[in-house]
């Protein structure tokens, strides 16, 4: 398909640690299409952040081995690009925001100066007066009240939600095609979380930008994603348009995750639990990685399940899918 902006195919990432080789990504395949918000969802250690960082070229060179596999931005292969070549892509064409917006902000400098600097890096030809008006325009675009006043403040004078807005303004200053947002609202209060996610969605739509939203929160995915990809033990085990996925889950893992969430709307009652824990990625995994915890497991699950696709771009890896479509 021509509207695929980011295509990750069978991507492997291995970390050298004192415990041995940890296979953090074991063949991740993922597509981000133009103007879509894709939620990459998974529990800790599933590899969702590693995927985001690999795409940004932000994995530590001394301990991470990236490949085999492929990561393409449009038709351009990113894997194996030099650091200097990545520098013209990172920030400029693919930008990133983090859980803690303070990581993107210098605590000793005023907000306006920092946003201005981000603009100057990407557009060195701009005159100072043009940069200044762009700063206010960018701060306005993330719905900060009274941009001129905010520009004069230091990061610590802003609330967490306002700092995340500033981080978004900086990330978008180069007008990237893709924004990678790694748990951008996890540290925020629920009322602030909705406001930031609403903002991200409206910016994504108005600019026709693609967003890869990395989250552990199924509720966030259900409300904001166009497409959802579920990760487990270093692989994407199920992906589909959000409406399709939540209407008809195929992977027993995805189903179990949904059933283990306590609800503010339903009463009490025992929660479904998933026995055991995720596998140790330093040890070899053969077959389906979820098999030891799966209630539908059979001897067949010792073989890696083939990727199956059912109607509506719904792709999954399972011998015993639980959805209506696959039966």
């Amino acid at each position, binding site marked *: 398909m021509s509207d695929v902006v980011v295509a990750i195919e069978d991507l492997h990432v291995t970390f050298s640690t004192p415990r041995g080789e940890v296979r953090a990504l074991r063949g991740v395949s993922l597509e981000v299409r133009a103007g879509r918000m894709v939620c990459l969802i998974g529990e800790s250690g599933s590899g969702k952040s590693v995927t985001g960082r690999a795409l940004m070229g932000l994995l530590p060179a001394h301990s991470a081995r990236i490949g085999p596999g492929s990561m393409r931005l449009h038709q351009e292969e990113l894997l194996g690009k030099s650091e200097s070549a990545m520098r013209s892509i990172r920030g400029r064409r693919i930008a990133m925001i983090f859980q803690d917006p303070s990581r993107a902000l210098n605590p000793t400098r005023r907000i306006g100066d920092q946003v201005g600097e981000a603009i100057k890096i990407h557009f060195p030809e701009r005159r100072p007066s043009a940069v200044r008006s762009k700063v206010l325009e960018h701060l306005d675009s993330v719905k900060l009240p009274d941009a001129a006043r905010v520009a004069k403040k230091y990061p610590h004078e802003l609330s967490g939600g*306002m700092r995340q807005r500033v981080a978004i303004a900086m990330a978008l200053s180069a007008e990237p095609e893709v924004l990678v947002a790694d748990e951008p609202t996890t540290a925020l209060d*629920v009322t602030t979380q909705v406001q930031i996610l609403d903002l991200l969605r409206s910016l994504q739509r108005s600019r026709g930008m693609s967003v890869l939203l990395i989250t552990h929160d199924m509720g966030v995915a259900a409300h904001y994603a166009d497409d959802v990809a579920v990760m487990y033990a270093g692989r994407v085990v199920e992906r589909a348009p959000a409406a399709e996925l*939540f209407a008809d889950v195929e992977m027993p893992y995805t189903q179990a995750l949904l059933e*283990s*969430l*306590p609800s*503010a*709307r339903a009463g*009490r009652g025992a929660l479904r639990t998933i026995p055991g824990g995720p596998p140790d990625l330093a040890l070899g995994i053969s077959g389906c990685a979820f098999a030891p915890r799966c209630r539908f497991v059979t001897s067949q699950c010792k073989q890696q399940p083939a990727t199956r696709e059912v109607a509506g771009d719904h792709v999954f890896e399972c011998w015993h899918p639980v959805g209506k479509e696959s039966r």
Partner: protein
Amino acid sequence: MSARAGHQELGEVVLQVKDLRQLYGHGKRAFHAVDGVSFTVFRGETLGLVGESGCGKSTTARAVLGIRPPTAGSIALSGAELTTLRGRALREARSSMQLVFQDPYNSVNPRWTVRQVVAEPLRLARWTSSKARTRVDELLDLVGLDPARFGDRSARQLSGGQAQRVGIARALTTDPELLVCDEAVSALDVSVQAQILNLLDQLKRELSLTTLFISHDLGVVRHVSDRVAVMYKGRIVETGESDQIFQNPQHHYTSLLLHSVLEVGVEPGSATRRPIEVQASQGDPAAGCLFAPRCPGAGDICRTTKPELTPISLSHAAACHFPTGVAGPTRRSTSQ
């Protein structure tokens, strides 16, 4: 408290907090992190204390546990006033309240074995080691950890869920009158969180535990709580039975919180589509309701007069001049 008057299943009061205040800072910059909080926890129930960061819920817990004595107010455990206790009497009172922490790793010495961690409160209470050992193994069994398999492991060899089970076992060693859980499942992945929530449920039934459960997560709070108190900027703005709070919130802030919860299969309400709050300068004592600047239902009186917690029905009270009376969002028809 008046809201509970006449209620039949009141039972025995374990914890009674009255007009608790905690002042931080000095002079012009001083502010009340907790500003006149009163609540009661009855034997065998779980009271959920919910609110966003900075609302004072953890400060309240720390005052109750005697970690930081309050500026003013009264805290009574089974009728005994704690705020005036000193020395040995205070230590004894404290051992009848136990805390389950958010991060089970940082709250224990990583070099200790699981048995040593669980036995620590008993060691402080001067139990003999053989008696303590029997009790520790009983408790490990109770929280679902096989003592033979886990007893001699070091705490750092445990997964997050196992470590939190150890944290719960340790909190239960002294048979506490009151268990305080401060964001006890917030750091856990959902599949593990579900295991711990089910365990807490089971322990509550088996041991008739009395729990003060502090969390920012409304789904979790609804799941564990019999009654709920919602805090906003140092005050309790609404309190009631769990179903009353979640199905029929009366305070506009409770309503906003519930509308902001993102769950699969539920549409978030329109209440979330609000302009962002302009930051009020801290330490500026607002005369009226602290939520008024964000409130869709605020009238003139809300900016001049602080609303007091007022009964709406039996066991349900809200501090609001114009309670909502609106039910929560309804389920979407496409929910699975």
